[in-house]
C-alpha cells in the first residue's frame, strides 16, 4: 500500500498488559493514518489507551508486563515492529520524537538543560560537543526561551513548568523529526501557558513540516488545532474523521455525548449534560460494544450487547464503530477501508 500523503499508519495494532489479575487489553485493533504535515488528535477519557497507543508507536510500552500483541505500525513504508532495538533507537528522537505530560519530571534533574538537548543531538548526529552545544542554544532560541546562551547552563529546577516544556520541545525537535508525538503536552500547565505552548507547536510544525500526533482529553484544543481526530473509548477507536466533520456531524453516541457535555459560550444556568456512567474496568470490559452500558441507544439493544462493531467508513475519511450510526449498516466489510 503506497500512500504518498501518509507518514504513519497503524493497522490493527493491539497492546496488552499481562498483570497478576489478568490480561489488560489496553489497545485493541487500532487503525489510524497520520498524514504528512498534519496534526492528528487522539482524544479520549483517562485510561482509554491514548498514551499506550503513543508508546506503542515508539515501542516504549513498559516491559516486561506490556507487549504489542499484533498489528503493523508503518512509518515511512517500514514496519516499526519489525525493526531491531538498534534500528528502533535510531528512529526514536531522530524520526519520531515525543514530549510528555509532566514537564516537571521529564527532565533529568542532575544535568543542565543544555547538556540534555546536546545529548539528544549527539545521539543522532555526528557532531562534536561544542557544535551540539551551539545547536542546543539555537534550539532553545527557537522554542522561545530568551537569553538562551545563559539559560542553557540552567538546571531543570530553575525553570518553570512552561519553560521546561519548551526545553522538552527543543529536545524533541533538535533532530528535525518527521513526527512529533505530544502526549497531553499542556495538561499540567495553566491556561495561558497552554496557549503559548500550542502556538509554539503550530509554529514549529510550519517551519519543520512535521506531523504531530496530539494526545489530549481537551476537545477545545482538538477543535482549535487538529486537522484529523480519532475518538478513543475503552481501548478502541469509536470514531475518526477530520476535525470539521467530527464536530459538525458526530455519528457515534459517545462523541455526541462528549460534544454535548462541553460548555458553550453564553451557557448559563443548569448543569451541563454528562455521559452517564463510568469508564469500564479494562480487566472486565462489557460484552459487545464496550460503550453499550452508557449508551442511550445501545443499553436496550441486544446486538449492541453481544456483538462488537468494527470501524466502518461511512464517508471518505469518516469512520465510526456503532451499529446505529447513520449509514453504518449499509457498508459491508469488503467496501471498508
Amino acid at each position, binding site marked *: 500500500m503506497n500512500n504518498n500523503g501518509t507518514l504513519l499508519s497503524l493497522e490493527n495494532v493491539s497492546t496488552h498488559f499481562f498483570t497478576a489479575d489478568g490480561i489488560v487489553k489496553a489497545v485493541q485493533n487500532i487503525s489510524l493514518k497520520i498524514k504528512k504535515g498534519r496534526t492528528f488528535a487522539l482524544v479520549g477519557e483517562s485510561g482509554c489507551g491514548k498514551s499506550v497507543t503513543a508508546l506503542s508507536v515508539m515501542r516504549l510500552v513498559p516491559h516486561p508486563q506490556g507487549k504489542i500483541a499484533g498489528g503493523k505500525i508503518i512509518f515511512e513504508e517500514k514496519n516499526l515492529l519489525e525493526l531491531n532495538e538498534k534500528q528502533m533507537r535510531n528512529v526514536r528522537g531522530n524520526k519520531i520524537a515525543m514530549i510528555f505530560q509532566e514537564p516537571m519530571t521529564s527532565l533529568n534533574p*542532575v544535568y543542565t538543560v543544555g547538556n540534555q538537548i546536546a545529548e539528544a543531538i549527539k545521539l543522532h548526529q555526528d557532531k562534536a560537543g561544542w557544535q551540539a552545544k551551539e545547536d542546543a542554544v539555537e534550539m532553545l532560541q527557537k522554542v522561545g526561551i530568551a537569553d538562551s546562551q545563559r539559560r542553557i547552563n540552567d538546571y531543570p529546577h530553575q525553570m518553570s513548568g512552561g519553560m521546561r516544556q519548551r526545553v522538552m520541545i527543543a529536545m524533541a525537535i533538535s533532530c528535525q523529526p518527521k513526527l512529533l508525538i505530544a502526549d497531553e503536552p499542556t495538561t499540567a500547565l495553566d491556561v495561558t501557558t497552554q496557549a503559548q505552548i500550542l502556538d509554539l507547536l503550530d509554529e514549529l510544525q510550519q517551519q519543520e513540516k512535521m506531523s504531530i500526533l496530539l494526545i489530549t482529553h481537551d476537545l477545545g484544543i482538538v477543535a482549535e488545532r487538529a486537522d484529523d481526530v480519532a475518538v478513543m473509548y475503552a481501548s478502541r477507536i469509536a470514531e475518526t474523521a477530520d476535525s470539521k466533520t467530527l464536530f459538525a456531524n458526530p455519528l457515534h453516541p459517545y462523541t455526541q455525548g462528549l460534544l454535548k457535555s462541553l460548555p458553550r459560550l453564553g451557557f448559563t444556568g443548569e448543569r451541563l449534560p454528562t455521559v452517564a456512567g463510568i469508564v469500564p474496568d479494562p480487566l472486565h470490559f462489557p460484552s459487545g460494544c464496550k460503550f453499550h452500558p452508557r449508551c442511550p441507544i445501545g443499553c436496550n439493544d441486544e446486538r449492541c450487547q453481544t456483538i462488537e462493531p468494527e470501524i466502518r467508513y461511512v464517508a471518505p475519511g469518516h469512520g465510526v464503530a456503532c451499529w446505529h450510526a447513520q449509514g453504518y449498516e449499509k457498508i459491508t466489510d469488503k467496501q471498508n477501508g
Partner: protein
Amino acid sequence: MSEQSKKLPKGRSLWSDGIHRLAGHKLAMAGLVVIAAYFLLAAFIYISELCNWKISFLQWGDKIGREYEPPNAKNIIGTDFLGRSVLRKTIYGTKISITVAFLASILSIAIGVPLGAIAGYFRGAVDEIIVWLYTTLSSIPYILLILAFALVLKDKAINLHWAGLGTLELRGIASVYLAMGLTSWVGICRLIRGEVIKHKDREYVLAAKSYGCGDGRIITRHLIPNVFHIVIIDFSLRFVSFIQAEVILSFLGLGEKNSPSWGAMIDTARLDLPKGYWWEMTAATLAIFFISLALNVFGDALRDSLDPKLRIQ
C-alpha cells in the same frame, strides 16, 4: 546578555547544592578534617616508603626503650613487649587500616552498584538471579563469610597478566580487603536496586528513551547519577565498618603479619592487658575511635545534605 539576566542567581546543580549545605555544617567539617588527616597520614607513609625516607616516627621496628615501658615523657604512649614505640606503631597502623577500608569500599561499590542497577533496571530473570545471589550471600553470617573468603584467598596469587598487571600476590592485607570487598557489596546492591526501581519508571527516563538512549546509556548516564548520593553516603558509613572488620580479622590472625595494624595491636595487647599493660590497647582503640566518630558524623551530615527528602529544614 541582557541587564535582567545578570541579576538572576547562578544555578547550582544538586551536587554543588549539597556540598554548599555540607560546608555550613561545622561538626561535619571537623569530621572531614579528621578524616583527611588520617588519609594524608596514610598517603604520607606510602610516599615515604616509596622514596625510602628515613623518618624517625615511622621507624616502628626500632627498639627505643625497655620492654613494657609505661607512658612517660620520652615515650608518650609507652613501649610494647619488644621495647618498640606504641605511638609509632599506632601511626603506622593507619596505613593498613585506611588501605584496607578504602580498597574494600571501592571493590564493594564496583560490584554492588552495577549489579544493583542492572537488577533494578531489567527486573525479570536477571533481577531474580542477582537477588538470589545476594540473599544467599547475606544469609551466611558476615564474619564467617569474610573468614572463609580470607582463608581461601590467603597466600594465593591472582593472574592479572591479561590486564597487563602481572601477578597479584595475595599476601597479608590483599586477602583481607578482597575478602571484605567480595562479601560486602550486598548492602549497596540492595539500596541501588531499590532506588533504580523507583527511578526507572520516572518520566525523565522515558523521555531519554524517547530520544533514542539505549539501556546501557540510560543506566550509566541517567540512572546512576541520580542515585549516586546513596553510594557516597554508603561509602562514608561503610568505611567505618571496614576499619572495624580489619581489626577483627587481624585479631583473628588473618591480617597483616609483618607490619603493625590496629587489629594486630589489639590482638597482642589482649594478652598484656591482664598484666596491667593498658597503653597499647588504648592507643589502638583511640585511633579507631576517632576515625569512626569522624566518619559517622560526616556520613550523617552527608546524608542530610544530599538526600533531597531530608532537605526540608
